[in-house]
């Protein structure tokens, strides 16, 4: 198991290294190159040359890459130009990260807590009203684009019915103490219950919007997996042993059905950033997704660089966690 984790971590380093090369190549292929990217198009040739020398752009490519890598390893990705001008690019990412973690976490908890039980129920009652209803609902969940779902939620619950805040993470004028940057958690840690409640209200709509697709996918995979497992010979063996329905369901059916579901959850977490970009934009929720959208639109390349590499690292880490979870559930992987 430990060897497995170490091997996967080494693989991860290779992946991130390759990606850093791609990011480097991408940066150099920008119109006008990084100098224009950093200084903008309208600059005097003297200033361009000075910056080129300063950035080492007059040196051979491999040398440039190594220097880029060296700076990157020290956390130096340059300075944000647009998202938060003058701020260190890495710091911009770190400032935005807690918001997105909080949002993604709540969204995934929602998706899992609803998707798995509903998927199981639908499979047990195949062809029933519950089953058909849930299948149609999940189809809609998958088919409707996230930004549209987000927009609809915002329009009805926030604008029309005035039940929840329209945007942002916290009401203006609220003075809350910050510890982790995850507002709900902060409110709980500091016992500022009004702040926690305020943060929760701001979180509900974006989290629901972000949860729709993972929910729909987890629901469908769970349903299909349970249906498959119910047909397995070992379930019939369990029945032949006279085991109680409860034991058969929990020990024999659910556990085996979880194998494909775990993989799916991993993939959905990996894909969450795409949804976060759209959701955070619609709700002006100041997280990584919102930063990514802004950085992309306003050509804030230093920030983009950080975000892309960070997304890759997170993606690979999540995959590692999924593989570990998989090995824990499935002994065929753990024991050769």
């Amino acid at each position, binding site marked *: 198991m430990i060897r497995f984790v170490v091997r996967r971590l080494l693989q991860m380093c290779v992946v991130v290294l390759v990606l850093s090369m791609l990011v480097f190549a991408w940066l150099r292929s920008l119109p006008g190159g990084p100098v224009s990217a950093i200084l903008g198009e309208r600059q005097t040739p003297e200033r361009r040359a000075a910056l080129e020398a300063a950035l080492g752009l007059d040196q051979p490519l491999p040398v440039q890459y190594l220097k880029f890598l060296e700076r990157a390893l020290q956390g130096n990705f340059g300075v944000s130009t647009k998202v938060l001008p003058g701020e260190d690019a890495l710091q911009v990412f770190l400032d935005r990260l807690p918001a997105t973690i909080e949002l993604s976490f709540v969204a995934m908890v929602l998706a899992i807590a609803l998707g798995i039980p509903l998927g199981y129920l639908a499979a047990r009652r195949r062809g029933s009203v519950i089953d058909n209803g849930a299948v149609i609902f999940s189809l809609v969940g998958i088919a409707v684009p996230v930004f549209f779902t987000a927009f609809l939620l915002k329009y009805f619950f926030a604008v029309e019915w005035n039940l929840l805040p329209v945007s942002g993470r916290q009401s203006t004028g609220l003075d809350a103490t910050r510890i982790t940057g995850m507002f709900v958690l902060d409110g709980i840690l500091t016992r500022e219950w009004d702040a926690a409640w305020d943060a929760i209200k701001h979180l509900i709509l974006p989290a629901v919007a972000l949860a729709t697709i993972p929910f729909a996918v987890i629901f469908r995979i769970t349903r299909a997996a349970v249906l498959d497992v119910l047909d397995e*010979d070992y379930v019939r063996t369990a029945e*032949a042993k006279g085991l109680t329905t409860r034991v058969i369901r929990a020990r024999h059916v659910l556990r*085996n059905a979880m194998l494909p579901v775990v993989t799916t959850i991993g993939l959905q977490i990996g894909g969450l950033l795409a949804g976060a970009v759209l959701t955070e934009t619609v709700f002006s929720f100041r997280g990584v997704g919102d930063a990514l959208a802004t950085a992309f639109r306003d050509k804030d390349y230093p920030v983009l660089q950080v975000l892309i590499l960070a997304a890759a690292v997170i993606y690979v880490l999540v995959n590692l966690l999924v593989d570990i979870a998989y090995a824990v559930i499935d002994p065929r992987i753990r024991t050769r």
Partner: protein
Amino acid sequence: MTQAQATRHPRGASEPLLSVRDLRVTFQRQGDAAFKAVDGVSFDVRPGQTVGLVGESGCGKSVTSLAIMGLLPERGNTVEGKAVFDGEDLLTLSPSAMRDRRGAEIAMIFQDPLSSLNPVITIGRQVTEVMERHQGLSRKQATPKARDLLERVGIPDPKARLVNYPHQLSGGMRQRALIAMALACNPRLLIADEPTTALDVTIQAQILALLKELVVDTGTALVMITHDLGVVAGLCDEVNVLYGGKVVERGGRHGLFKRPRHPYTVGLLNSIPRLDAPLGEKLDPVPGSVADNLPWASACAFAPRCSQVVDACTSHTPEWEGDHVVGHRCFNPMGGTP
């Protein structure tokens, strides 16, 4: 079978443990006509006796056993008739009463040992869970018993095997583990549905020898389901030959093999590979296939494949000639009508 057992359970001396009467299983297939997989099967199993159900693929052997166990799919079929076990009709028991008996009084082992074992649960747990369920033992109390059971079914190093998963065992060991699970609560009846079909020939012989030894030792009655009369020869006291969902011939092992009456039984006997046969000699399987079957309602289903066919065979249903010990269903049996 040993001489001792033959005297212990002389023919007809004891009340049947399981008495199947006119069992019918009909599958409703969507858009298709209903399909009678089991069409009026009757047979008895006396305590400690080994009874064979033999026939080609699709003749209804598995459906018969699943119907007795109450393990047919919940929807899409109807079961009629009786399966009286120890004075109670299993087919009318409530699902929960049936659940209490399965694994405790009646156990079953299946054809494919790998797919019949849960891949993510240890062998030990899969054995102990039966005892936890039916004997009220804790997992801790059941574990040493599970170890002993694995030892009894001939699994080497049983202690280490307890924590193994099915994929870590060989095919023969898996089937032994399944037998251990089935015998965990000392059932009075064991149904084995082609328990050796998925195994190598040498392993098959070992598993059959083990089953024989265990049923003799424990006095468990055994229903042995197979398509291979050769398996039955060394094991069963009584043999029921099934064709198209009906029993077409029944007899004691010796009588049936020496003087088969039904042409289908003769065909099956001729298709047993013989060890003394010259190498490469073609076996003589029953010609044709079950696809040619006529409906039992107005004919003998076997007629299109039968060498003995007479006029009545295609216009009337042959009735059962005999009792619950010997008999056949044929207008023109081998050796003439007595």
